[in-house]
């Protein structure tokens, strides 16, 4: 526990910004040495597990635990009655019970917690618990849920089944449609998307002799977790410590509490023994959060020359029974609803709605994926109507620096959409598309589609997006970085080493990383929102510069140099260029007091300064971002007319995410985002009927495999972002937004059908093709 990651097997030479340095975590992960939360075991460990209600909506009349309690090997069976705290968790609105008390609101609600000697005993004991549930009518459709008389998910919610609603009007709103020459309409549906990480929700916890509960969890949010856990089960903040190793995948699914509170509760009842909880895949599918399904109504109006004039959109987000991050997701979607285009008049309405479906939550790109799927298809539909080239239409309307988005946010940072589109425009996949399409074989149709993207980073105007970086020269002469933000696999811990290493002119072997731990590292916000390297990196630059000055000052004193002017840091030492004298960092580390060789720096991200005419509530939920990445994607697809299968043959992306600190990690982020986006576009169909999951496992929920993944080219468009660390912007999410619209547009280009519902499965495509034939 509380290890320090050291990195062997790296080539010599100081770290540099812009170099494809191998990831610091690569060797340990590839060899299996890395210890994930799932790898924590101890000899006297107790297994904890949850009995779930298994009904979408019902009143809890009784929870019968006697038989389970009596079963040999069972240590404790707990219900809501055993919780001393608020028994509520949540990020914005705390509406989710740790253990259900009055009602169950979806099939995955936890009702009882069992502690057992081993996993088999645990499973048997869970079966012995009986629940008496009085079924209530459920609500499973967003628009039905808003009607009068719909069953209420939370009787005490003032807005009925509305968690959050928002209305934004800019310019003349709807009346502007009267002045449009062309108006296009579309109704789009997007499904749940399951994160399907390799490492399902897991953690390990133990109560120490002093009463403190230590939790090791696969989480993106250790500091927020600590506060939530403490409040929910009635502990002081200081009595909870959360340690966050590298996660085995998270993608937003661990942006908040999964096992943490349950584990802490279990640890209070295990007589000091360590406790482990690890959700089965099926359990993760039922109880974990998913990308929010949406229903999106779009109306887009333009002048005859293709200049966009008006946009109206109604956005419905299904958050399931709990807020989780639903309101925030909806708000980010709203901000991106009109894309990176100049649209002077808009009326945007959005509702985030409670239902008895699975819980909607954060998923890479946080609502923007859904609205981009709709808006970017609208752009192609408009281009077709105007008989214009889709790329030209986008170029014509693309926002540039200093202009306002359709919700009224001024783009103050680097704004590279035009550059991204131009890179795609010049690429052979575009310039040679007609020849490629014409070469399709028998029963094949080929098409090429594009999509333009924007993705804002950070928390928005109210919630402070800050980080506190701490860095230390150890007595051994190593540079130790206390990472405040979780590395869920995206490589930000490595980026931290690269940033500090380049400032201090050290190589990877000298770098040590302390991963997030509420007792050792400093609060720096969540691993989410494309903010990790942007926000923490900025803080880390400050800390590394302070440390550098301190090291040089100390070296100047010891070397009796008149000033630090002639001193320079080299790998493992400080060198006096004038005299050739050297002093190793290990010596400096021993001679400096702890307070001298430790530096801390704070950074808070800028936010949009526009005075938007929106509610405070909407601002609290994040409206108004200042740091925005851009992209343009192109998909070349081949459609099989016999089966309806859509194969993505080649995929191109150009991304303005500022400076790529590490081109290899940049590319991995883009590739990963595209693959998840392709899953969303073509494969992943999370089925829920009347609140019950019908695709309960990876045999029925289809995620793409390596052979389904196209050749991907990812061009960095490295415009300098003035506020970013070394000119960087966020790259973690944006690529996820491109595939659905790019592939849908390519499919329309190939065979003239438009899919208003995702995913575009072979069955849906074939039936659409036949519909077109018979029309």
């Amino acid at each position, binding site marked *: 526990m509380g290890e320090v990651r050291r990195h062997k097997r790296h080539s010599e030479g100081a770290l540099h910004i812009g170099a494809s340095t191998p990831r610091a975590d690569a060797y340990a992960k590839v060899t299996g040495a890395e210890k994930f939360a799932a790898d924590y075991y101890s000899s006297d460990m107790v297994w904890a597990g949850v009995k779930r209600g298994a009904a979408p909506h019902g009143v809890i009349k009784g929870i019968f635990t006697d038989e389970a309690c009596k079963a040999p090997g069972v240590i404790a069976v707990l219900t809501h009655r055993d919780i001393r705290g608020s028994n509520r968790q949540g990020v914005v609105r705390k509406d989710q019970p740790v253990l259900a008390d009055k009602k169950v609101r979806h099939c995955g609600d936890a009702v009882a917690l069992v502690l057992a000697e081993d996993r088999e005993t645990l499973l048997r004991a869970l079966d012995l618990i009986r629940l008496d549930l009085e079924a209530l009518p459920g609500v499973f459709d967003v628009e039905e849920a808003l009607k009068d008389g719909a069953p209420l998910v939370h009787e005490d919610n003032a807005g009925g089944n509305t968690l959050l609603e928002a209305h934004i009007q800019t310019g003349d709103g709807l009346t502007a449609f009267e002045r449009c020459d062309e108006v296009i309409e579309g109704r789009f549906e997007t499904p749940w998307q399951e994160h399907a990480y390799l490492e399902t929700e897991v953690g390990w916890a133990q109560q120490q002799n002093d009463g403190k509960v230590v939790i090791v969890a696969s989480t993106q949010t250790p500091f927020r977790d600590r506060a939530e856990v403490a409040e929910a089960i009635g502990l002081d903040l200081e009595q909870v410590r959360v340690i966050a190793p590298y996660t085995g995948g998270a993608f937003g699914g661990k942006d908040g509490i999964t096992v943490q509170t349950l584990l802490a509760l279990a640890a209070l009842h295990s007589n000091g023994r360590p406790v482990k909880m690890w959700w089965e895949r099926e359990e993760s599918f039922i109880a974990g959060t998913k990308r929010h399904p949406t229903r999106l109504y779009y109306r887009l109006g333009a002048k005859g020359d293709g200049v966009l004039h008006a946009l109206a959109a109604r956005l419905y987000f299904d958050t399931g029974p709990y807020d989780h991050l639903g309101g925030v997701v909806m708000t980010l979607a709203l901000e991106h609803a009109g894309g990176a285009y100049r649209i002077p008049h808009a009326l945007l309405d959005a509702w985030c709605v409670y239902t008895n479906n699975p819980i909607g939550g954060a998923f890479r790109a946080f609502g923007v994926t859904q609205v981009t799927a709709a808006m970017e298809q609208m752009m192609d539909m408009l281009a077709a109507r105007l008989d214009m080239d889709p790329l030209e239409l986008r170029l014509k309307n693309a926002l540039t620096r200093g202009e306002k988005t359709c919700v009224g946010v001024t783009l103050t940072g680097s704004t590279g959409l035009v550059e991204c589109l131009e890179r795609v425009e010049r690429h052979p996949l575009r310039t040679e598309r007609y020849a490629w399409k014409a070469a399709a074989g028998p029963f094949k149709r080929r098409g090429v589609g594009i999509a333009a993207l924007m993705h804002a980073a950070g928390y928005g105007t109210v919630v402070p997006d800050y980080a506190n970086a701490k860095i230390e020269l150890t007595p051994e002469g190593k540079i130790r970085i206390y990472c405040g933000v979780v590395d869920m696999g995206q490589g930000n811990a490595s980026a931290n080493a690269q940033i500090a290493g380049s400032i201090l002119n050290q190589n990877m072997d000298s770098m040590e990383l302390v991963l997030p731990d509420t007792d050792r590292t400093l609060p720096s916000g969540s691993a989410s929102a494309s903010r990790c390297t942007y926000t923490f990196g900025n803080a880390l630059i400050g800390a590394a510069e302070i440390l550098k000055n301190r090291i040089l000052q100390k070296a100047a004193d010891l070397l009796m140099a008149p000033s630090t002017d002639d001193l320079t840091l080299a790998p493992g030492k400080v060198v006096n260029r004038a005299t050739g004298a050297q002093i190793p960092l290990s010596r400096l580390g021993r001679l400096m007091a702890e307070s001298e060789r430790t530096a801390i720096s704070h950074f808070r991200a800028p936010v949009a300064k526009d005075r938007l005419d929106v509610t405070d509530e909407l601002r609290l939920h994040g409206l108004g971002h200042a740091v925005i990445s851009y992209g343009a994607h192109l998909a070349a697809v081949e459609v099989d007319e016999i089966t309806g299968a859509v194969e993505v043959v080649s995929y191109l992306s150009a991304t303005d995410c500022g400076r790529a600190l590490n081109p290899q990690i940049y590319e991995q982020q883009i590739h990963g985002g595209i693959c998840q986006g392709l899953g969303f576009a073509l494969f992943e169909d999370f089925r829920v009927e009347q609140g019950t999951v019908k695709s309960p496992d990876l045999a029925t929920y289809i995620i793409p495999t390596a052979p*389904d993944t196209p050749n991907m080219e990812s061009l960095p468009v490295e415009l300098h972002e003035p506020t970013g660390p070394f000119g960087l912007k966020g790259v973690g999410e944006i690529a996820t937004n491109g595939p659905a619209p790019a592939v849908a547009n390519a499919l329309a280009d190939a065979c003239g059908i438009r899919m208003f519902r995702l995913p575009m499965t*072979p*069955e849906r495509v074939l*039936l659409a093709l036949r519909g077109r034939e018979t029309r």
Partner: protein
Amino acid sequence: MTQVLLPRALDELWDFLEEDPNTAVYSGGTDLLVNLRGGRINPSRLACLERIEEIRGVRDAGAAVFIGAATTHTHLLENSLVSSEFPVLTKAIRVLASPAIRNMGTIGGNIVNASPAGDTLPPLYALDAEVEIVSRKEAKRMPVSDFIVGPGRVRLGANEIVKGVWIRKAPEFNVRHFEKVGLRKSQACAVASLAAALSLSEGGKIERARLAWGSVGPTVVRSAEVEEALLGRELEIQMLAEVARLVERAVSPIDDVRASAQYRRIVAGRLLLRLAESGCKN
């Protein structure tokens, strides 16, 4: 904890099976372990067949080829006798599961599991394969289409196992085609599949036709009506589209989470169209 037995010869296996009738046999375990985890079976112990030499490997028996039940899919993919005599089987195995599962899973397991989506089954039906069943006392053979009686149901008595399959060489077939429609390219359970073996005359006329569809009925579907309708015709799109209508009537698919019955029915017919590409070639 479940006891796992590793017999090296059939005689040893019979002893184990007689000792405890609740012993389940398995080879790769790629179906059995899924069922075990799902709680659908509850054997008292397991006997693994993969070390029994008599039921492994491919043997040339002159007019026919014997494939041992415990032969892995990977082994069959790499076997030149199989790929030259029965390319339709090789084509099916190439798209079965993924490399890791093919390294473990066996043809015997695929047959006894008797899933309508089992990928080796349409080729075995199209090739009129026979299953050899053995017990301590006797050995017998029956057509695969008799052996499999329903989804997951086979004619296998207590203390009997499948020793292997016999496939007659049939050099007269010069078009050997297999296509699986799944929801992705690898690790995909068939939504519909077609195995076809045709003999085309010099002039391109169909002289013999054997077709078998997977995943569009409780067991693999063959249709005498469809096969007859093809005889004497040439492989061209118009004709295949007409016969596709007959196919739609011959199959009896169901709706499930992977696809609707309607889609399976349409695709079962349309898969014929791909044969037009084969023309006179293999």
